[in-house]
């Protein structure tokens, strides 16, 4: 039986991808942030997941404005890297797992989640920067990836509670797949950031710390945070944190925090990172 063994929370920004691709990870500006992921790279190499379910958002690269799906599951064999306006990142193509993705869609829809099926999709920095941070710069990614793109661009994104419940449905879907697979789930985006308007640059370290604490201590509180509270306390784009709640709920009731890291800034973003082991004996 397939199991979700662990979850990773991780911010994403185009600037992180650019720093990797342009060889700037050792500069004074970037070194402290990249050092924070060294332990994580070792950890994930040892934990050796077969599949990563990547809960992320597209930034108007795969999706334009003709259609805006709230939850879109990537069911393709592979996902090319998007050209976001300055050329595609020189990272390996992302290999999917269409059989498991199809199963997840079927299970999820019968569980009353109206998932959008995506058979062709490019992926942008929302997906590729967490891959670079966790897996470094390999010639081919060592895992297959099932992208789940969440709309957080046009208001309103799905509620935290909806995301939390989707996480529970994903756990159920994975556990009903009859193949021994080590599956991990990533929740990406966040933490504090606002990248628009005169209020750009907003960071709330205390909000971010409490959020990281409560992923293991009190996730039920987090699922009830309203969009307005994310936007007011931690910046308009901090609402991306709802995607971390999909990850958290997919791990079951109890989790063990393995590692965390927090750093300001990466461009305009408060970079948060956490690794949580699922308690599969509950």
């Amino acid at each position: 039986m397939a199991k979700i063994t662990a979850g990773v929370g991780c911010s994403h920004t185009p600037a992180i991808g650019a720093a990797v691709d342009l060889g700037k990870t050792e500069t004074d500006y970037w070194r402290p942030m990249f050092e924070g992921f060294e332990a994580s790279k070792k950890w994930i190499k040892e934990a050796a997941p077969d599949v990563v379910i990547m809960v992320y958002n597209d930034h108007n690269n795969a999706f334009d404005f003709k259609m805006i799906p709230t939850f879109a599951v990537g069911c393709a064999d592979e996902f090319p890297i998007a050209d976001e306006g300055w050329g595609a990142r020189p990272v390996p193509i992302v290999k999917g797992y269409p059989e498991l993705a199809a199963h997840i869609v079927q299970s999820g829809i019968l569980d009353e989640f109206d998932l959008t099926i995506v058979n062709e999709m490019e992926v942008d920095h929302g997906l590729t920067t967490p891959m670079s941070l966790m897996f470094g710069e390999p010639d081919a990614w060592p895992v297959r990836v099932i992208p789940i793109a969440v709309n957080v661009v046009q208001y309103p994104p799905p509620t935290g509670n909806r995301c939390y419940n989707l996480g529970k449905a994903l756990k159920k879907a994975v556990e009903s797949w009859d193949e021994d697979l080590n599956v991990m789930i990533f929740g990406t985006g966040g933490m504090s950031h606002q990248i628009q308007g005169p209020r750009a640059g907003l960071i709330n370290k205390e909000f971010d710390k409490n959020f990281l604490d409560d992923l293991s201590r009190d996730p039920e509180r987090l699922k009830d945070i309203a969009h307005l509270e994310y936007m007011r306390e931690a910046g308009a784009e901090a609402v991306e944190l709802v995607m971390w709640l999909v990850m958290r709920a997919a791990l079951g009731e109890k989790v063990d925090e393995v590692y965390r890291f927090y750093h300001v800034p990466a461009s305009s973003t408060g970079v948060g990172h956490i690794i949580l082991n699922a308690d599969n004996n509950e």
Partner: protein
Amino acid sequence: MNEKQHEYEDLPGTWVFDAQRARKGYPLNNFFMSLMKEENRKAFLADETSYLSQFKMSDAQRDAVLKRQWNTMLELGGVVYCLAKLAFTDQHSYQYMAAEMTGMSEQEYVDMMLAGGRSPDGWRSKSETKESAQGDEV
């Protein structure tokens, strides 16, 4: 028919990209999306006014693009990720665009971020916020 004022409209220095703003911004955002192709970036830079005439945007939207009034573009329905494609077309970074929106120089903005970013104190509601911080005042 009028919609009730939404609570998020009280966030200072922020234009939430909601359904009504998205509706108005549709042609503007389609223009930004067209800049994902190199030949379109070239055509736009060669003759901005003529290139923009393909898109059914309002005069105010067109004017904001030509003048690179980033905050006005947000207010008129542009999505920040799409605005970035215009900044990239101009060979600018995301960070440059964010700095422009705040009225700071790029270096001042970077320094603010290195010092831990902008505190939410004073920026939780419009009534709290100093007028001096509003952008596109030029």
